[in-house]
């Protein structure tokens, strides 16, 4: 058992949840605001997609997007000198893409449950749309949003298929915990795999508990 997969996974999951959280929130509030019901449904469908595809397939897509011979990959490589494939950022990209729908959907449900009167009241109190979002909508939707965040974090932490595809499985660089588990299992080292599993479980358990703790404290005005 090694330390590096743990550190890499923690780093990846933390950075990923940061992006997923923000992207998910903004996608959610953007979709909630769309007036046309049709457009809304279509956007919703599209944003939920990464969830229905097996992660490996998502990984393939990502590989095709970021491949050095593909437009985006070439652009990144030639103009910014960044090669995504097999780099650590690729683990983050994979985690973000795969966990995004969880955050988006949870946040959307939570936003839709918020009492519209409060939003209106905030507007008449001259809060800017941004303030309305951060100070009223978000806190009101907190349970749902936190729930989505936990889901997304956990999913990012456990992400494997897409990560393996675009980030590879390089020790000290892109080998995350799930990948280490996979490698050990594949190599028949069930004991080591077991330790890694316990570590993944412990981390996610701690995160769930901590998040609950924080959001319960936050929410203690509701008796």
């Amino acid at each position: 058992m090694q330390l590096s997969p743990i550190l890499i996974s923690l780093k990846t999951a933390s950075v990923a949840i940061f992006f997923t959280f923000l992207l998910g929130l903004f996608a959610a509030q953007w979709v909630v605001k769309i007036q046309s019901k049709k457009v809304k449904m279509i956007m919703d469908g599209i944003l939920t997609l990464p969830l229905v595809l097996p992660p490996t397939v998502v990984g393939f897509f990502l590989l095709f997007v970021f491949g050095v011979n593909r437009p985006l990959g070439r652009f990144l490589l030639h103009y910014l000198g960044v090669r995504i494939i097999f780099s650590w950022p690729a683990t983050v990209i994979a985690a973000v893409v795969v966990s995004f729908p969880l955050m988006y959907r949870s946040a959307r449900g939570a936003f839709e449950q918020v009492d519209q009167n409060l939003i209106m009241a905030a507007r008449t109190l001259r809060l800017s749309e941004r303030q309305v979002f951060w100070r009223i909508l978000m806190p009101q939707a907190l349970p749902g949003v936190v729930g989505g965040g936990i889901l997304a974090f956990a999913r990012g932490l456990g992400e494997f298929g897409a990560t393996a595809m675009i980030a590879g499985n390089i020790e000290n660089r892109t080998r995350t915990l799930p990948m280490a588990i996979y490698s050990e299992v594949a190599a028949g080292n069930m004991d080591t795999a077991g330790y890694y599993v316990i570590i993944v479980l412990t981390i996610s358990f701690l995160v769930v508990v901590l998040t609950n703790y924080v959001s319960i404290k936050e929410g203690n005005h509701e008796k």
Partner: protein
Amino acid sequence: SQEEESVITLAAAASLKNCLDGELIPMFREQYPEIQVEATYDSSGKLQAQIEEGAPINVFISAAMKQMEALDEKELIIKDSIKALLENKIVLIVPADSDTFIETFEEIVKMERIAVGDPDSVPAGQYAKEALINLNLWEIVESKASLGTNVTEVLNWVAEGSADAGIVYSTDAAFTDKVKVVAEAPAESVAQIIYPVGIVKSTEGEEAARKFIVFLETEEAKAVFESYGFTANQ
């Protein structure tokens, strides 16, 4: 001698992880401290796709010629670097505590639940299919086979008794004592199973990569491979 530091990235079939990570890479590092080896292990098909998409890989060890040839066709591999490195065998396995009594490869058809790697994606499955076709058994087997998406799956199905028998590499069978090898595929039924090695083109560490391949072909490396159930190719 204070040579320039260099890093090579090795992409190898997952079945090689134990012997490479566990022994060969440390041995190589001892001889060439200035060369750092980073390794990634996955199914050969995936590695192939990754190389095609420009993953920064220097050395590729595939579990079958197919992937190497495909890459070679696309001119992604330095032609003269491709070498048959190892040989593996496919074997018929049953759960260790199985009371079914079969002794030959052909008797696989007697089993109800058979585990084979998916010939489309798993090299071991490809070879198994080839052998069974040559033995005129594939149609029967296919109808009751569960096609594993990787060798690990196949191995575990048999180890857990979920499948009554399975076909895997002999090296995989060595991972666990929960399965026992009943028979090897008859020699004439299947082509030699070659693990080729090659250097990926347009990479910087070509020199170091060559050193690594040379090292893999040394006698001491071959001894290690053999201790893991491979046959070093002569």
